[in-house]
């Protein structure tokens, strides 16, 4: 199956599940999926949302300095995350908590940077999930380079670069498109168009749908309903297959919506209407799959009850983890600045240690 370039004029998007939870067919994207898998996706989304809500609450309670919520983007993240293999490699932005979940990253390790104890607290290579990148767009080049390396190794893996609608304007993203196309690198550019870059609507970034950007660089782009976890799964799977088999990069634009604030520091009432929000709440990705499960009778009450319990447990675990998360020692400032050492850092570390000690000795 090949992801097809959508025509320049078309703004249709791939959908396999209507907002009412009805399964629909798409001429190019089919999806065989078992009830168990459907429940699995539902579980992923519910747990992810719960984790996200918990993190937001922890920020309110002062346990985190900041939290960028993924509320509303669960389908885009779980659908794409579940489309990948272990050997694939993901380069996230700072909002891919759902993708991290799919990769098997311990959710609590995502919190460190927002608590201010580190700048990224997980080993990128244990789950093939790179650290969050805050400088908008920079990671798309890392993903492309990594993918060039995959191709050099003759390995069969897809590299996925997540980025936002706002990020699409950054020069680095354009350059990554150029490099990926020229080197035929196995990278899926996965743009979550959540309609907003902080306070700026997507029209401030582009006057045409973003998936079309790929065409101009010579590779296919496709827009998928980002609130439809099945469509996202199918489209990302196809895209990943395509790049893994040496057909070069693919751009997937997941058309979704950031239902929460940009981060806990943001006040979205300044720039968007509650009508808009309501409109999108009707398209809620979790509700949609729930409607499907219910209309098809694929999950019983017990499933939902268990899931609620599991959510509660995970929330508890996260709360406990954050409250016991130790502050780093001051000397951590000097750790890992260099891998092979640096005389000045050594000198400053020693100076710092002596200075800190002078206080402890009750100077």
């Amino acid at each position, binding site marked *: 199956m090949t992801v097809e370039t959508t025509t320049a004029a078309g703004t249709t998007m791939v959908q396999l599940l209507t907002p009412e939870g009805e399964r629909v067919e798409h001429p190019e994207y089919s999806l065989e999926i078992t009830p168990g898998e459907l429940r699995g996706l539902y579980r992923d989304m519910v747990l992810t949302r719960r984790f996200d809500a918990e993190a937001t609450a922890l920020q309110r309670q002062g346990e985190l*300095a900041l939290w960028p919520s993924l509320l509303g983007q669960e389908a885009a993240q779980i659908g794409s995350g579940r489309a990948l293999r272990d050997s694939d490699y993901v380069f996230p932005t700072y909002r891919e908590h759902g993708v991290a979940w799919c990769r098997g990253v311990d959710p609590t390790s995502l919190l460190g940077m927002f608590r201010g104890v580190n700048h990224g607290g997980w080993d990128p290579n244990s789950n093939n999930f790179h650290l969050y990148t805050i400088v908008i767009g920079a990671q798309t080049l890392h993903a492309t380079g990594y993918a060039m390396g995959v191709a050099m190794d003759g390995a069969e893996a897809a590299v996925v670069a997540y980025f936002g609608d706002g990020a699409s304007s950054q020069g680095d993203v354009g350059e990554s498109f150029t490099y990926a196309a020229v080197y035929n690198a196995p990278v899926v550019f996965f743009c979550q168009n959540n309609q907003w870059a902080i306070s700026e609507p997507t029209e401030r970034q582009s006057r045409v749908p973003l998936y079309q950007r790929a065409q101009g660089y010579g590779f296919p782009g496709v827009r998928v309903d980002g609130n439809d976890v099945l469509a996202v799964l199918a489209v990302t799977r196809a895209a990943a297959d395509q790049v893994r088999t040496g057909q070069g990069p693919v751009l997937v634009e997941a058309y979704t919506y950031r239902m929460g604030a940009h981060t806990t520091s943001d006040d979205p009432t300044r720039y968007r209407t509650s009508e808009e929000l309501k409109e999108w709440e009707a398209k809620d990705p979790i509700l949609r799959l729930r409607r499907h499960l219910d209309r098809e009778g694929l999950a019983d009450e017990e499933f939902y009850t268990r899931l609620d319990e599991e959510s509660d447990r995970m929330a508890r675990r996260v709360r406990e983890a954050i409250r016991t998360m130790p502050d780093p020692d001051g000397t951590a400032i000097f750790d890992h600045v260099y891998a092979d050492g640096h005389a000045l850092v050594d000198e400053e570390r020693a100076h710092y240690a002596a200075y800190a000690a002078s206080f402890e000795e009750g100077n």
Partner: protein
Amino acid sequence: MAQAMALAKALNLSLRTALDNDPKVLVMGEDVGKLGGVFRVTDGLQKDFGERRVLDTPLAESGIIGTAIGLALRGYRPVTEIQFDGFVFPAYDQIVTQLAKLHARALGMVRLPVVIRIPYGGGIGAVEHHSESPEALFAHVAGLKIVTPSNPSDAYWMLQQAIECDDPVIFFEPKARYWEKGEVDPEGIPGPLHAARVVREGSDLTLAAYGPMVRTALQAALAAEEEGRSLEVVDLRSISPIDFDTLTASVKKTGRLVIAHEAPVFFGAGAEVAARITERCFYHLEAPVLRVGGYHAPYPPARLEEEYLPGLDRILDSVDRALAY
């Protein structure tokens, strides 16, 4: 006429005044419109001056500066905003190879009155890239002017002057001080943009600082006073050029200099100050110029920033060391 207001508010008022006074002044950057900027410095400006004067730009900093250059060539005076210190680097090439050099390249035939506002510095508990002090990375580059206010009145006036200046000016705003209040008199008469200011007189040692560190320096002077030491505090205000005359006069009087900044010490502003003041005051210095600043490490996670930033204690420690010579 003087009013007490927060530093962020003084900046807002200054932008408002500039937009009012000169139809060529534009405000542009990410989220400067409806949101009023993430720090609300541009609050209400788009509402009052329209989308033509106050532009929400695409999320691309090289584009912000690059198009501002074009607008300046067309006769506009763009006041650009970079959302945080750590996000100025995508625009670095446009700033150092184009904005800084175009006036010289054109043998003076074009002017580049572009202001780049950058909230900078730490101490606000933020995530990575939101707490840096990159002024040294610009000061080395000829063609740029660099200033940083430490209080609301300077914020108001220095921004007015930066906008009026026909050269590119990087205007570093001490974000940790945005909410501190002070008197602003919009009908006052400002001093020269690039003059340092003695903000506290003293006789034993000169303590130089700028931007967010000026308050800390003043606190250090108070603390030192309790121990019977008289510190003269100089607010540099301008990083390019640096007002070495004012500093020299102070050091010739006190015989000692400590310079504090948040930026890493290595290759920081303190190095330039130390080198030049040592040359100018060689026979007056009783001690080497001591520098207090950030370490040679990436700005750390928030829970470590108190350890990283040169606070009261570290300044006093350096003061003690300098006085011990």
